[in-house]
């Protein structure tokens, strides 16, 4: 059992938790992930490590309430426990020899992008962050990004905060205006990452994407998380989660990520009904 040391709602659908897991906290690096189960018989759910405090022994997770398991997790409060918490899994994001990077985050993906930005910033790298959200209410971690970036551009789909439009627009402008990035790191929805790659490819700017396919064990045992990268099968949980964006077959990954959509929708409805009953 792993204790929820703190819980904070970042916006109406995104929650941040610090979990007491000293073994994981001791080893965690930006870019790695954990797998948790909220309760016995729960689903194994991967979440990227959004931060850690080695001394306090805590690991930070930030999640968007989208399905049955995230709904269950969100019902847990500070001081309560979750059943399982294993990690750190996957490889840390490579940060060696980077002098100037653009970090592109989309939605809850920004939570994952932040520790990477912080780490690079600390290492003395020039960090330009472009973070995108649907609207003002969904903006998260703006101050944290400001502190970790030399340049920050906030985008919203409807213009209710920052600039109106997609993250790829300012990215393209920056590259065209002569910014020479060693690397662009994109973390967010698959479609966003696909378009970031389409934006950077013509300029040949190395682009790293963080892939989050459906997973079960997270240890390389099942192959459920496989992707095609450069024509070869790769397991996101052990070979990734970061991959060279130019080589990832996004269309395949997008198709695979929809595998359980009908199931998820049914589950969420069941859960909502259950909750409504309890409220009554």
């Amino acid at each position, binding site marked *: 059992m792993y204790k929820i040391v703190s819980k904070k709602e970042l916006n109406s659908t995104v929650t941040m938790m610090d979990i007491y897991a000293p073994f*994981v906290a001791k080893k965690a690096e930006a870019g790695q992930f954990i797998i948790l189960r909220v309760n016995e018989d729960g689903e194994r759910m991967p979440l990227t490590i959004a931060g850690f405090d080695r001394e306090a022994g805590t690991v930070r997770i930030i999640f968007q309430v989208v399905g049955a398991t995230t709904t269950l997790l969100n019902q847990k409060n500070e001081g309560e426990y979750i059943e399982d*918490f294993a990690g750190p899994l996957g490889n840390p994001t490579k940060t060696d020899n980077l002098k100037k990077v653009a970090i592109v985050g989309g939605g809850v993906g920004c939570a994952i992008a932040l520790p990477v930005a912080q780490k690079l910033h600390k290492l003395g790298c020039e960090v330009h962050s472009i973070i995108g959200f649907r609207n003002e209410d969904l903006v998260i971690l703006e101050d944290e990004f400001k502190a970790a970036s030399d340049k920050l551009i906030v985008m919203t789909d409807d213009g209710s905060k920052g600039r109106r439009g997609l993250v790829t627009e300012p990215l393209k402008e920056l590259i065209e205006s002569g910014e020479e990035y060693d690397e662009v790191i994109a973390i967010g929805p698959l479609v966003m990452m696909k378009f970031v790659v389409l934006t950077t490819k013509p300029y040949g700017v190395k682009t790293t994407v963080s892939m989050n396919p459906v997973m079960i064990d997270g240890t390389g045992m099942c192959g459920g998380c496989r992707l095609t990268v450069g024509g070869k099968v790769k397991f996101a949980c052990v070979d990734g989660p970061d991959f060279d964006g130019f080589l990832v077959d996004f269309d395949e990954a997008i198709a695979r990520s929809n595998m*359980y959509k009908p199931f998820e929708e049914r589950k969420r409805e069941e859960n909502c009904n259950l909750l409504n009953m309890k409220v009554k």
Partner: protein
Amino acid sequence: MANMSLNKNPMPTQDPKVRAKNFLEVATGYSEQAALDEAARCLNCKNMPCVSGCPVNIHIPDFIEKVREGDFEEAYKIISKSSSLPAVCGRVCPQENQCEAKCVRGIKGEPVGIGRLERFVADWHNEHSSAVETAPEKNGHKVAVVGSGPAGLTCAGDLAKSGYEVTVFEALHTAGGVLVYGIPEFRLPKKIVAKEIETLKKLGVKIETNIIIGKTLTVDELFDMGFEAVFIGSGAGLPRFMGIDGENLKGVYSANEFLTRSNLMKAYEENSATPILRAEKVAVVGGEMLRWMLQERRFALAQKRFILYTVAPLKNFLQDRKRLSMLWRRALNSNFFAIL
């Protein structure tokens, strides 16, 4: 006087019509009567050929003799001197290639049902015995075991019996390895595995789940923590894909993924939190699952139709049981399972 019947006492099973609709164990196990009768088929051979076929050299004629005398607890004690997982091995060991392949009764007729007797004895003990397992006196040495599959558990059990302080580290949330994530409930009920693990805990074995050695802790750190030896039993269960067109399409599973969803995560249950695809039409590629299905005569999730694509000719599979089970174990990982 030995029972000279040429045939083993048959294994009672659930009615096929009933078992097709549930996930309960198919084979229901010998009654006391059947066990006594089967035990009487053993000739108590002096040179014990059966023992030479057993990887852990269980004193087979000795335990069978105790069964014949009706002293099932004593029979259990004899088995557990050599095996830490009798209820599991009695069910899933390929006895037809091991002890039973060497049994002299197999020359003229069927060999003694050693596996069935082992299972009977273990189940009898688990149900009736009031004997309390106690941790033996500690010898002051600490050993770490990586992986809680049958290899790790056996190692842990043997060491604990000799007084070592053993901690098993498991990457997943449940101990058991393939026994819990791979082998289906109807072949090896999870509560049997849990019971065997309880027995190990009573012997003083500690089990730490959610620890991935190499990630959460390294082997060097284990030594720093005071472990003097590390046994690595991490399994060989990694799927290898064949590079066939369409292999990564939505709906294509590796055997391991399908089994893990179904068994470890209990996706066969109606209200499971973990999803699994259910389709009208199923294609299975590879020979391994074929044996599994022939053996169980049904397909776990009761699809209406399935098509088998085997990598070896079907005829050979059907004719050659030995080869089949060898292939089963050797090639498990190279096959994949598709629901299209």
